[in-house]
């Protein structure tokens, strides 16, 4: 149960503010913002997503440069509220096509309308874009996505936006195409976050893949979709799992440590032929999340050689090797390296003939950035 919901810009302006129960004082947005901005507790410099000020619990998530906040006085489930905030952001995005400060400001009435149906007196009613369609009457004012600055290559590793921004999927689920005709489209993205730690000698210490199959459907009539996965997919490791019937997995076998599914997914034939069947609801949603620690060849290998070149100078040689066939290209590769906090100046030297590469030293957070458009 929540008391209030509001969206703040990073400057602290109220973009949307909805009070559901009237038991938290009106100034909560300011209290929250000041607290987050000047967080200095427990030696930490970043406010945790949940904190308590004077008996009021504040939950927040950052999505697309906006702070989505909920308050409550009761001891609610933090997962529930944080999940809800994330979900509200997604519903709004489904409606507006693009979620940012501008689109939100232009459509705040629509957003209020959504919020009224999503939560009543602090209790969640529904977060399904599909169901909400029949209750919501405002039409979105579409912001032109093409003119938006790209989210930045690192966007996909940030929370919330787990996929590359592509203009095709930035349209609203309710807005009609110019000309009044709808295109029958469905987008299925597979997004994997690969985390690998190398030792300084190049040996892999840990490696993990967190993946999501994300779907966004614009199909009319909500047909059933079947999604066939690799048949040699096993779930669970070390004989712990009931699925572990082929322990002598062949070369093509993929072993997932674990996975979970969206509630619309039927798993009736999953055990037999690894097929998921579902009637995709409107809007964007993750069909399946999975996690694996099976050994794999990391797509990139980075080596760094650091040499002290004098009392106040160090030379770093960074090398990246792409470990995949040359007919595949990787877009927007970014390499970041944290630098000591007393670094004052960084100069870069690129390989001769490098095209489409930029380098930058981010003074504020002492980071070196090297961006490659293609590799």
């Amino acid at each position, binding site marked *: 149960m929540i008391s209030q919901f509001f969206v703040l810009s990073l400057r602290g*302006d*109220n*973009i949307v503010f909805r*009070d559901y*129960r009237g038991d938290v004082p009106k100034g909560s947005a300011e209290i929250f913002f000041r607290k987050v901005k000047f967080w200095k507790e427990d030696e*930490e*410099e*970043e406010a*945790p*997503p*949940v904190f308590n000020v004077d*008996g009021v*619990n504040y*939950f927040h998530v*950052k999505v697309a440069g906006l702070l989505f906040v909920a308050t409550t*006085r*009761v*001891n*609610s*489930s*933090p*997962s*529930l509220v*944080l*999940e*809800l905030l*994330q979900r509200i952001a997604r519903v709004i995005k489904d409606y507006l096509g693009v979620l940012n400060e501008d689109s939100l*400001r232009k459509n*705040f*009435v629509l957003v*209020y*309308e959504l919020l*009224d149906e999503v939560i*009543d*007196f602090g*209790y*969640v*009613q*529904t*977060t399904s874009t599909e169901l909400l369609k029949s*209750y919501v009457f405002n039409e979105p004012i579409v912001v032109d996505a093409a003119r938006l600055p790209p989210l930045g290559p690192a966007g996909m590793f940030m*929370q919330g936006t787990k996929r590359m921004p592509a203009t095709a999927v930035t349209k609203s689920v309710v807005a009609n195409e110019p000309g009044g005709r709808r295109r029958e489209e469905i987008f299925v993205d597979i997004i994997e*976050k690969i985390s690998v*730690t190398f030792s300084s000698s190049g040996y892999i*210490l*840990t490696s993990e893949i*967190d993946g999501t199959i994300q779907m966004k459907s614009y199909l009319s009539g909500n047909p059933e979709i079947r999604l066939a996965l690799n048949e040699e997919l096993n779930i669970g490791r070390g004989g*712990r799992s009931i699925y572990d019937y082929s322990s002598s997995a062949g070369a093509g076998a993929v072993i997932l440590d674990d*996975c*979970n*599914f969206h*509630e619309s997914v039927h798993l009736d034939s999953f055990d037999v032929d690894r097929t998921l069947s579902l009637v995709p609801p409107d809007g964007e949603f*993750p069909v399946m*999340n*999975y*996690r694996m620690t099976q050994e794999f060849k990391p797509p990139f290998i980075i080596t760094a050689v650091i040499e002290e070149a004098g009392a106040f100078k160090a030379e770093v040689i960074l090398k990246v090797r792409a470990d995949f066939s040359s007919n595949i290209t990787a877009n927007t590769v970014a390499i970041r390296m*944290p*630098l*000591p906090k007393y670094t004052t100046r960084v100069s870069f030297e690129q390989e001769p003939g490098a095209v489409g590469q930029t380098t930058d030293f981010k003074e504020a957070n*002492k980071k070196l950035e090297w961006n490659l458009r293609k590799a």
Partner: protein
Amino acid sequence: MAPPAQSYKSPSPSQPSGKGEVSDLKLQLRQLAGSRAPGTDDSKRDLFKKVISYMTVGIDVSSLFSEMVMCSATSDIVLKKMCYLYVGNYAKGNPDLALLTINFLQKDCRDEDPMIRGLALRSLCSLRVANLVEYLVGPLGLGLKDSNGYVRMVAAIGALKLYHISAATCVDADFPSMLKSLMLHDSDSQVVANCLSALQEIWSLEASSSEEASKEREALLSKPVIYYLLNRFKDFNEWAQCLVLDLVSKYVPSDSNDIFDIMNLLEDRLQHANGAVVLATVKVFLHMTLSMTDVHQQVYERIKAPLLTLVSSGSQEQSYALLSHLHLLVMRAPMLFSSDYKHFYCQYNEPSYVKKLKLDMLTAVANENNTYEIVTELCEYVANVDVAIARESVRAVGKIALQQYDVNAIVDRLLQFLEMEKGYVTAEALVLVKDLLRKYPQWSQDCIAVVGNISSRNVQEPKAKAALIWMLGEYCQDMADAPYVLENLIENWDDEHSAEVRLHLLTAVLKCFLKRPPETQKALGAALAAGLSDSHQAVSVFTDTQNSEIKDRIFDEFNSLSVVYQKPSYMFTDKEHRGPFEFSEETGGLSVGVESVENIAQRVDANDNDLLLGTSEEEEIRGPSPDGSAYSAPAYDAASISLTSSHTQSEPVISNSSLPTYSAQTSLAIDDLLGLSLSSSTTSVPSPPFLKLNAKAVIDPGTFQRKWGQLPIALTQECSISPQGAAALTSPQVLLRHMQGQSIHCIASGGQAPNFKFFFFAQNAEASASFFLVECIINTSSSKVQIKVKADDQSTSDAFWNLFQSALSRFGSP
């Protein structure tokens, strides 16, 4: 349709009130109000949008209220919605104007379109104006019976809103029972869920004053209701599932089949992509299996993978919430997670609040097999640019070292930290080396060699400085220059602001003097002189280690903020905002009135956590009472029997007269109490009025609590109980039964030998409104009793005290 003008996009501080604009809007709205020209709705939409955008940024547009209402006569649903939003926001502050809206809202509640009916009903209930509640009852009643699910769904929450505006109106209209029947029969799952939410709130708030409500509240946890909800489980959306799961986690299963049925049914919820659903399921599993150790362990094994998947698939914020729960589980059963340690490795881009949790978990799961790898990983973090994390990592290494696994390798690492030449790393490492040496003195050779190289000038943090000084004192014979370093430090005594450092300095110099007197004598003198003139008072700080009781409380509150804050909920929520059933969990039972009794206990003695609930005993004792029924006592029987006569059955009954039946000693005791002189009292003081207690007195915990809070203390007394009595008081129940026989009832009791605490009450048989409330603390080892009495009728409190004391004094005697 054009979007609102750009100029309203970001109101600058230079127009704080927006007064000019507001009066402008007022004019325009007025013009539109009566207009029927085509396109009016569009212009209204624009104006309404402006109004709402002002409202959002905090400009007061309440002065437009009447104009907004005038404009609301429209069939345009978007306009209606904006108007409802506006009205809902300002009605509370303008109750008179709110009356204006009632008419059109009531009309809309009868609209043909269910959507409009629902919206109007929701707005009507959101007005939050107390004197308008009479207008709500009719539409709400109709709404609950509406043929459309949407309207019923809104009405269910509407009833709850009404309850918060005026509880009596809601109860009088019999809405709770309508909600209950909807909950058990409605075809729409969201209606069911909303009824459940509403009922949980209403009944837990009502429970403090009405026994019926608290029974209803318990009934929500009865097997038929729980099974009914579980059977419909798949109909609910994910949020409603969370609600139901939360309820199920409080259900006490009847047997192990019950448990396994529920668990099998919910098994697939662990695969859900919504972390809230998974955590709620995990809570059910963990709590249900608490008494079955091996199954409980299997549950841990089962939930591990789904939780880890969720941690890595959600946003940082969601991960944090899940990790906090994982953290709790890891702390409870580190062994079960010892092979998963790699999942707790930090990633460079994680926020520090996540890293901190992970470091904690890495420390906890370290054992013989993984210590080496964990410490290696931790050492990487020590070089981290994030200072807080680097510090935390050093501490983590130290903690693992103190856990005794593979100390050898760790000591080397710690010593390397000392040589890293980063102030904060050295500081943390020094503190750890000190702790380590206290536990493993055998490492002193290696450590002191390195510590000796550290210049005291480079150590600034008080804790680290104190650690260094301690080592200088303790191992002064191994460090050649120890006396001189100490001497230097003493010279700068006045610059040293930390009391801890000064204290350590004093002891270190003394230790050093005992081992190397000639070199230290001068320094010691200086130190003592400086110390004597020191105005500093050393303040001892108590470390607040989390005791296991608190940890268990947090575990009870799994899937709540308690886990994230690592505090039980009573430490951060106000009483009135605690959830339903929260207190029943504490006692593990489901007895009536736990909440209020607990509250009393907290008010009276905030630290007294182990107060038991009295109700169960109360009922147990009521059983054998004369006619077996506590509520329908016929007037003729012992209901008004006098206390003395009821107990001393062998003696002749003298209850028909108004003669005092007290012994002379007792009267003296009262006189003493009243401060009257002993000599004259026996004759001149009128005998206390004869007091009869109602043997069947009933008070509900809420009333008790309220009275206890309101009434002044009538008497505070200390007396003794007989040694036999003290010996007989092995558990609170014994005394309860005894006092029950004297028509003095217990409402709450607690404690363990030798200290017991009771809350008693009694009712004057002749004046039903006159209650006596007693707090009684008994120490059985000293036979001392401390008593506080409060009474509705102060004039009878002395008489009551007599009865109470004589009843108590007879406890234990045959």
